[in-house]
């Protein structure tokens, strides 16, 4: 079926910048807090107030634009986007229109064929709105009894990143958002928390029959609050639109709302009521003209970005593309891995396995991010080194890791406290083996008779006597020597 249709997706991504103060006033930027506790006459749009652009926000936007390979405008404007909504204090949003700060870039994302370039149309700065809480009714403004407005978020600097319609599936959109999120995190410009709304994704999606030149009817999907939701919502839409094409039922250009619970989209409003935003240049601000010198300085201080880092992880650590993909999805994960790998003398792949197979499991259960984990990267290296040296077994190491995760204690302390050191001393082990043979003469005879099957039983007996601290390899060797040679 998929061969018969082609999907076209373009994304519009809003990123709240992690500046200290708001875009046009001195109020602090933060998440949540008591309603209307971070407001002033400027961000409340009081009569007579004026905006003054936040230089740090411009710098962050330039970082994003440069990291996405955009052309940086030498001269650009702020515009007013006029529409009425109670969460917008001035009833216009200061944004950028036909003269954005950054134009024409791209982001290369991993694909089946190695890498695919997704075009970036533009990156521009604007201000966020406040938040409405519609009380009564179905939660939307029209049916509510009354609405409460919290303007703490109003005026938070926001960057809008618009892609070209280069994305061909929900899955690819998911990869793009994952990659973009990692890039923004590496740049240090945003918290990129989709759950807190500091990264918000809207998608335009259309489906057409394979080979057709015209795009299908475009639908805008909103309210996707996690990367996973992006994939789910677009998969749902893809399927819905394909079915409509199959059935010959008409598709309308509209905005659809994704419902997390049902996994379905539903119509919000049709584009027939398109707004006329009456854009015009914001007369309260002067044109933005970043100097070539400033732009060059920012370019110089860009950190290593995920695509470069991916290449380096393959060449420097010899990792597989899949492992690299997992490690570099977040720059804090990548940095954590590198800190651990540097403290470890063995094959870095072992560190990767411990992170992906074990540490991620613990993080998932606890529901926390790696950045909040109590284990310091060199401690993981120490743990793996102890397994390599035979000080503890792999099974014991998992128990120790869980304890490290809980308490943050170094592995050596935990092993010592739990008396877990592995005994490899042949003399000590031999005494317990002799005891086990003496207690189970029948089993020993069977083995002596050339049947190695029950050997495992004897190993188990020895381990039990030694509280699991015996080096199983040494126990096996001695038993073999005593009974089979």
């Amino acid at each position, binding site marked *: 079926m998929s061969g018969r249709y082609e999907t076209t997706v373009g994304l519009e991504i809003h990123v709240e910048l992690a500046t200290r103060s708001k875009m046009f006033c001195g109020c602090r930027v933060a998440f949540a807090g008591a309603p209307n506790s971070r407001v002033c*006459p400027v961000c*409340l*749009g*009081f*009569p*007579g*107030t*004026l*905006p*003054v*652009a936040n230089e740090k926000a411009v710098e962050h936007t330039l970082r994003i634009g440069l990291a996405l390979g955009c052309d940086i405008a030498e001269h650009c404007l702020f515009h*007013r986007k*006029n529409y*009425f909504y*109670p969460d917008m*204090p*001035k*009833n*216009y949003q200061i944004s950028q229109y036909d003269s954005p700060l950054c134009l024409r870039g791209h982001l290369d994302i991993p694909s089946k064929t190695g890498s695919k370039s997704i075009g970036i149309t533009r990156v521009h700065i604007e201000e966020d709105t406040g938040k409405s809480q519609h009380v009564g009714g179905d939660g939307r*403004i*029209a049916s509510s009894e009354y*609405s409460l*407005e919290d303007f703490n978020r109003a005026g938070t600097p926001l960057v809008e990143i618009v892609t070209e319609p280069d994305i061909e599936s929900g899955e690819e959109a998911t990869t793009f958002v994952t990659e973009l999120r990692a890039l923004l995190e590496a740049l240090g410009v945003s918290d990129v928390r989709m759950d807190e709304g500091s990264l918000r994704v809207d998608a335009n999606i259309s489906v057409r029959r394979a080979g057709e030149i015209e795009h299908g009817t475009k639908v805008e999907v909103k309210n996707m609050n996690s990367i996973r939701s992006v994939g789910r919502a677009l998969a749902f839409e893809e399927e819905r639109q394909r079915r409509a094409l199959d059935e010959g039922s008409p598709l309308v250009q509209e905005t659809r709302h994704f419902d997390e619970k049902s996994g379905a989209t539903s119509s919000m409003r049709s584009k027939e009521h398109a707004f*006329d935003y*009456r*854009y*015009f240049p914001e*007369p*309260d*601000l*002067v044109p933005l003209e970043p100097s070539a010198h400033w732009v060059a300085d920012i370019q110089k201080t860009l950190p290593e970005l995920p695509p470069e880092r991916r290449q380096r992880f393959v060449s420097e650590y010899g990792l597989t593309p899949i492992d690299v993909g997992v490690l570099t999805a977040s720059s804090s994960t990548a940095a954590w891995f590198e800190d651990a790998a540097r403290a470890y003398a063995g094959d870095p792949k072992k560190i990767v396995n411990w992170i992906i197979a074990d540490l991620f499991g613990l993080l998932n259960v606890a529901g926390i991010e790696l950045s909040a984990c109590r284990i310091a990267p060199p401690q993981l290296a120490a743990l793996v080194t102890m397994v390599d040296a035979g000080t503890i077994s792999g099974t014991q190491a998992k128990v120790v890791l869980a304890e490290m995760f809980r308490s943050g204690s170094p592995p050596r302390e935990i092993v010592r406290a739990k008396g877990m050191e592995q005994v490899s001393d042949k003399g000590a082990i031999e005494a317990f083996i002799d005891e086990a043979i003496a207690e189970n003469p029948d089993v020993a005879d069977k083995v002596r008779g050339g049947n190695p099957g029950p050997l495992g039983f004897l190993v188990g007996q020895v381990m039990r006597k030694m509280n699991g601290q015996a080096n199983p390899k040494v126990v096996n060797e001695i038993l073999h020597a005593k009974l089979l040679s």
Partner: protein
Amino acid sequence: MSGRASTPSQEAPLQWRTATELARGLEARELSARDITAAIIEQSNAVEPVVRAYLKSTHERALESAVAADERWSRDTTLSSHDGVPLAYKDIFVTRGVATTCGSRILESWIPPYDATVVSRCEGAGLTSLGKLNLDEFAMGSSTENSAFGPSRNPWNTDCVPGGSSGGAAALVAAGGVPWAWGTDTGGSVRQPASLCGIVGVKPTYGRVSRYGLIAFASSLDQAGPMARSVEDAAALLQMAAGHDPMDATSIPREVPDYLEGIDEGISGMRIGIVKEFEGGGTQPGVRSKVEDAYRRLEKLGASLEEISLPSFEHGISAYYLIAPAEASSNLARYDGVRYGYRQADAADIVAMSSRTRAEGFGDEVKRRVMLGTYALSAGYYEAYYGKAQKVRTLIIEDLERAYSSVDLIVSPTSPTTAFKLGERTSNPLEMYLSDIFTVPVNLAGNAAISVPCGLSLDDGLPVGLQLIAPALDEKTMFRAAYAFEKDLGWAGTAESRPPL
């Protein structure tokens, strides 16, 4: 007339002295701020029933502040050379804790939580505010008849308007109710009422005075300006507030020259342009004759006059009535009943609430301009209207730049007419708009200009104003010329310059 020029106004009653004279009296410890303030309040109260200049008086507070200023004078800890001199503000300047309405019902209940930069700078200099003065609603008008709280009257003839939109300020200054005041000028709103009331009014260069705390009408045109009974006072008041403000991104980050230094150096050798396109064009004979006298006086003082051509100026009014309403339609969108000001609380939903709040809160002229501006910015019309108006604006700037290569200043009448009767133009908005034909191009270009009295029209005995237009940021030359003219005319400070109330 020139014989009266040297009349020592030290002998004049306190309410008729200029702020500069009052400051000298304070400096010499011959006057107290309290006595000055009390005398001016007394005059203010005496004329108020006739001129209706106030929207909110703060006389009690002013008297307390005057006492505090006197203490500072006695301890030599004064805040400025004008510490304790009273002033007043057009009610478009935001004042912390004092109701600020902008002449509109929609802001009737609003008490601002902050001060405009102009206000905090003047307060920092120790000036005491007598109150907030009447204006056309949101500064949209040329007569104060668009004030939601009733019009002010011209002290020269109370059947006439004082001009507008800063009409309350012009009337009160002219009537001796305050020595000086702050107005705002978007298309002539300081200069035209100054002209109609026989006082001095200044429109500084756009960006010279901070707009922070000045309720926006048309952001790219609005500029605060002093209104006073002498050029010297106007220059001194501008000096107090001019200069860069980090709260206004459009304020100019350049040092402010000393406007009073060299103000009396005369205009010998100055080249002054007369605009060919302003000839005729509806100017009343009485106005024309006074202004032509003024031109001859400038020549007598040593200036050379030459005719210049500013062909784009004829499109000034058209461009202005697209740009100003467009910006206003956006600036006034915030008055929706959600956060402050008037709210129509009986409405069933948000759309009805905001619509009815605006329908009931705004007056006709404001609605007219919001609709005009909304239309001018609409998709499909933007290029033909707003876009084209911006091109005219560029042409006006270019015309002026060309003119200033051959002249230092440009002169014209401030207004084509003297004060008109109340109600005379209210039914014809277009005729009202033509009051600003000589002043509007200056706002479009962003230049500085001043209106200085040139006596009374022989037709109706009402004041006539002369406009001097300077290049951007050359207020100093403008003040020097206006000062020389004022001094030679010898009208300011005389009994003849006081309206017969």
